[in-house]
């Protein structure tokens, strides 16, 4: 007797076979004694299974079930406390993370230095410098003479002008035009409060750049800088100015090889100008004067 025949026998003994299947099993039983024994065993097994259907009475009750449910806890999975639509809590954190990543990418992508000498930012700088008749180009023509440079570009506009920690307000009237000799020690710096909203003007910004460049080159990298900005936005990139760098809340971030204002064209007319200094002569008690050859060294504003 193979498996299939045995399955047919089982189906017949449990009254689950069709008539045709039953007739085939009957033929098989009549021909095989082992099949008859097996059929008898299945029959007895079925009767015994019927006997085993009795079960003792249970001791379940509503109170017992209520206690079990309370013990298991009517948690959030319970129907009473279940919301129809559960707010996925991971969405806000995921959104915040995505925004942070995009923000960081945006900041870094806009803070990259454009090495092209014909970058729009430099064109704008030179244009503004021309309008103000304050060319600042040739001063920094030799980068080797000034190992420290800072980046200059129009990195983007800002809604709120940066309040400088230190704003150079006094421009040295003398010694400016004398062979590019900066008198950084004569700078008078005024610490303005952070609540000062109006930003420096373009003129003062250029002047501050000049003066502070001298101060930096004479003193140390990371010296305090004034903010270089216009009312509409930064004249120089904020990437070159780092509030958190060493040397003060607003310090220069130096970068070798970065494009500097020295590459800007300087075609302003040169005239002889007499500048009156702060100090006075001990002999005549009159103010000292300095004669400069070009107006491009004269810084206005502050």
């Amino acid at each position: 007797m193979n498996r299939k025949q045995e399955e047919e026998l089982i189906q017949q003994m449990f009254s689950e076979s069709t008539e045709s299947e039953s007739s085939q099993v009957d033929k098989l039983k009549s021909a095989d004694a082992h099949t008859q024994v097996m059929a008898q065993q299945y029959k007895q097994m079925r009767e015994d299974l019927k006997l085993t259907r009795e079960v003792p009475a249970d001791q379940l009750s509503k109170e017992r079930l209520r206690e079990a449910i309370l013990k298991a806890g009517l948690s959030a999975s319970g129907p009473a406390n279940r919301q129809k639509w559960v707010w996925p809590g991971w969405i806000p954190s995921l959104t915040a993370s995505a925004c942070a990543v995009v923000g960081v990418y945006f900041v870094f992508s806009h803070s990259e230095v454009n090495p092209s000498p014909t970058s729009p930012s430099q064109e704008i700088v030179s244009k503004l410098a021309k309008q103000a008749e304050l060319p600042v180009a040739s001063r920094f023509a030799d980068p080797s003479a000034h190992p420290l440079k800072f980046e200059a570009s129009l990195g983007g506009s800002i809604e709120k002008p940066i309040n400088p920690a230190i704003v150079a307000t006094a421009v040295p009237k003398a010694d400016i035009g004398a062979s590019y000799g900066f008198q950084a020690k004569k700078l008078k710096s005024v610490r303005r409060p952070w609540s000062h909203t109006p930003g420096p003007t373009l003129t003062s910004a250029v002047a501050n750049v000049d003066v502070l460049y001298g101060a930096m080159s004479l003193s140390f990298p990371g010296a305090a800088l004034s903010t270089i900005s216009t009312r509409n936005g930064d004249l120089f990139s904020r990437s070159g100015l780092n509030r958190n760098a060493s040397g003060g809340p607003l310090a220069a971030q130096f970068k070798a090889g970065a494009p500097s204002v020295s590459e800007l064209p300087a075609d302003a007319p040169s005239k002889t100008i007499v500048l009156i200094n702060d100090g006075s002569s001990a002999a005549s008690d009159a103010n000292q004067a300095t004669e400069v050859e070009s107006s491009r060294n004269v810084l206005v504003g502050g």
Partner: protein
Amino acid sequence: MGFGAVIKGRIDADSDVALVRRAREGDYEAFEQLFERYRALVYRFAYQMTSRRDDAEDVAQEAFVRAYQNLHRYRDEAKFTTWILRIVTNLCTDQMRMTTRRTALEQQEAAGALDWMTLGDVEDPVANLEGDRRKAVLRTALNALPVHHRTMIVLRDLEEREYPEISAILGCTVGGAKLRVLRARRALRERLEPFFGEGSQ
């Protein structure tokens, strides 16, 4: 509104689906009605699977607890009995697997003590009648079967569930359910083979 409509509305209100909906909305009494309606069925099935009254009660109770906690997962198109029996089947399967991990000695001791305490009413050791002996043999053989075979025997031959319902409970096809039942019966007969004809001899 006619009498028929009233009766129909009453039937609909008392249907399993309506009770489940009410229970979902927080009506615990509706769930208690379901418990009263099907606790005997669940307990009987659990007892056939575990062969111990206390275990069967624990399983049945746990099944209703889980049913209450997961009422939102119950689909209305399915029968509540099918769904609850599926829960019981899973619980019994888990319990069997845990039981098989016990050591042989613990199993023997626990089984003997619990049999004496829980099955004493049904299987009187003093009055060892032929029927009781056959039942005890069958019960022993049934307990010795693997849990998947035991489930099929209980569902089909003890609880007399139809094949479509068995297939729904087990998540298989009707043909697959039939095949499983056949295999389980064959396995049970092989277990019982040494004892067949013992009483007659």
